[in-house]
C-alpha cells in the first residue's frame, strides 16, 4: 500500500472510529479474560476453601460451577467479540474501503 493512500485512509473519520472502537473493545475484553483466569488461578493458590465449599447438601462443591463458568465465559466472550466485529466493524471497514477507492 502506498503512503498516500494510507495517509488518506488514516485521516478519514470512519477509519478513526473503527480503530478506536475496535481496539477499545479488544483491550477491554482482553483485560476481562486476564482478570477471570488469573483470578481463578490465584483463588486456588491462596484460598482453596472457597472452591472446596459445598454447594448444597450433596458432594458438589462451588469449584464445579466456577470451573464450568470459566470455560463457558471464555467461549461466550470470544463469541461476543466475533459477533460485534463481523457485523458493526465490518460495515465500517466496508465503508472505509468504498471511500478509499
Amino acid at each position, binding site marked *: *500500500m*502506498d*503512503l498516500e*493512500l*494510507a*495517509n488518506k*485512509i*488514516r485521516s478519514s473519520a470512519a*477509519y478513526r472510529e*473503527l*480503530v478506536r472502537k*475496535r481496539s477499545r*473493545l*479488544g*483491550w477491554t*475484553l*482482553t483485560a476481562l*479474560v486476564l482478570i477471570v*483466569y*488469573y483470578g*481463578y*488461578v*490465584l483463588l*486456588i*493458590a*491462596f484460598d*482453596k476453601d472457597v*472452591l*472446596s465449599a459445598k454447594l448444597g447438601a*450433596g*458432594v*458438589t*462443591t462451588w*469449584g*464445579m460451577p466456577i*470451573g*464450568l463458568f*470459566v*470455560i*463457558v465465559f*471464555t*467461549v461466550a*466472550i*470470544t*463469541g461476543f*467479540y*466475533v459477533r460485534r*466485529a*463481523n457485523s458493526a466493524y*465490518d460495515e465500517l*471497514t466496508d465503508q*472505509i*474501503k468504498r471511500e*478509499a477507492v
Partner: protein
Amino acid sequence: MNTRRLGIAAALFAASSTCFAAGADLGQAVKQATNWTAICMFVAFVIATLFITKWAARRTRSAAEFYTAGGGITGFQNGLAIAGDFMSAASFLGISAAVYTNGYDGLIYSIGFLMGWPIITFLMAERLRNLGRFTFADVAAYRFKQGPIRAFAASGTLVVVAFYLIAQMVGAGQLIKLLFGLEYWIAVVIVGALMMVYVLFGGMTATTWVQIIKACLLLAGASFMAFMVLWQFHFSPEALFAKAVEVHEKKASIMAPGNFIKDPISAISFGIALMFGTAGLPHILMRFFTVPNAKEARKSVFWATTWIGYFYILTFIIGFGAIVLVSTNPMFKDAAGKLLGGSNMAAVHLASAVGGNVFLGFISAVAFATILAVVAGLTLAGASAVSHDLYATVFKHGKASSANELFVSRITTVVLGVVAVVLGIVFEKQNIAFMVSLAFAVAASANFPVLFLSVLWRGCTTRGAAIGGFLGLLSAVLLTVLSKAVWVDVFHFASAPFPYASPALFSMAVGFAGIWLFSVTDRSARARIDQAGFDAQAVRSETGIGAVEGASH
C-alpha cells in the same frame, strides 16, 4: 505411571507435561495384545484419508495451494481443524487421566489450554490474516528488513516444531504399542510415512481435511462416552460425583483443588506459557492463512474455542465416569489393583466399559488418527518456514518461482519426516516430559513478542525484533534446561537452579524487554524505514485493504 508418582508430579507442575494438551509424553507403555478391531478401524481411516490426499493432490499445484489450501477453507472448517490441532491424543488421554487420578485438578489444568484463544481472537486473528500470506514471518517481517526477521522466525518455528514433533512421535510409539500391540519402531515408522504422504502430495488441503475428519470422530466418540456416563446417572452430575467420591481412594478431596497449584509464581508462569504460547505456535498461526478473509479468520477462532471448551468439559465427565465405571471393575485392573496399561488408559477402558469391544477399537483408532493429523500439521509448518522464509525470501530474495518453492517444501517435508522418525526412535526411552512445555515457552517468549510488537508498536525496529526475539528464544531454552524437568529428571543432578515449573514469565519478559531496548537504542537508517512503514502496515492490518484474498471455491 503409578498414582502416587502422578500426584507428586502434578504438585510440581511436572505433570503439566505428562499430559500437555497438544503434545505427548504418555510415559513408558507396556505392549498389549494385538487389537484387531482397532487395527481394522484404523486401516479404514487411513484408506479414507489417502483418498482425500489423492483428491487434494490435484488441487496442490502451486506454493499457495501447498501452504494454505489456496485460502479456500471456511471459518467453520478451519475452526474444527484448529481444534483438531489442539485435541491431541495426549490431551484426550492425559486430561481424562488427570481427572481420573486427581479429580478437580484435571479441570484446572485443562482450563489453562483454553485461555489463549480469546487473546488470539481479540488481538491477533484479523491482523494476522490481513497482513500475512503463508507463514507468521510474513506478518512479523512485514515492514522490516526481511533477512534477519525471517531467519529469526524460521529458527523460532523450527525449534517449536522440532520439540513438539519429537514429543508427538515418542507419544505415538508408546500409545500405539499400548493400544494396538505393535512394536514401538513400527508404530513410529507408520506415523512418519503416512504423515509424509499427506503433506507431500496433499499439502495444506489434505492436512486440513485429515484434521477435520479426526476432530469430528474424536468429538463424536467423546460425546458418546460422556452421554453414556451421564445416562447411567439419569443426567444428574450430583449423582455421578457422589458415586465417584464414594469409590475414589481420595474421597471428597477429588471435588476440590488439590496440589496442582501450590506456588503462585509457577502457576502464573505456567498460565502465561499456555496463554501466549498458543498465540505463537507456528502450525496454529499458519491456519489463519487458509481462510479467505479476516471475517472467516475470526469465525474460525470462535469455532475452535467452542469445540475445545466443549471437549474439555467432555474429558472432565469422562474422567469422573472412569472413576465410577473403570476403577470399580476388576476387569480393567492388574493383580496389584493398578489400571491395566497405566492411568493414561482410563478413557480407553471407559470406552470398553460403555461401548464394548467395537467402541474400544473405534476410540483406539481415533487416538492413532489424532497423532497422525497433528504431526502432519507440524511438518507442514516446519517445511513452510524452510521453503518460504529461508529459501524463497532470504536466499532468493523473493524471486523464487512457485514451482521451485514447492520443490524445496517437499524436500524439507521428507527430511523432517525422516528426522522425526529417527529422533522418535532415539528418544524412545528418554524422559521427554519437558519437550512440549519447552515448545510452548519458546512460542510465548520468542514468536509471540516479535509478532505482537511488530504489529502493534510503531517503535519496533528490525534490530530490536531480531535480537529481542533470539534473546527470548535462548532464555526460554536455557531456563528450561536449568529447571527440574531437564536438570534433575534428564541430567540427574540433585536440585534444579531454576525453581519454577515454567520459564515463560521470565523468558517472555526477556523477549519483550530485549525488543524494546534494542529498538529504542537503534539509530540506524534502517530503523527510520522500519518506523516509517508502521502507518501503512497499521491501515492494512485494520482494514485488510491490500490483503491477499483467498480463492473462493
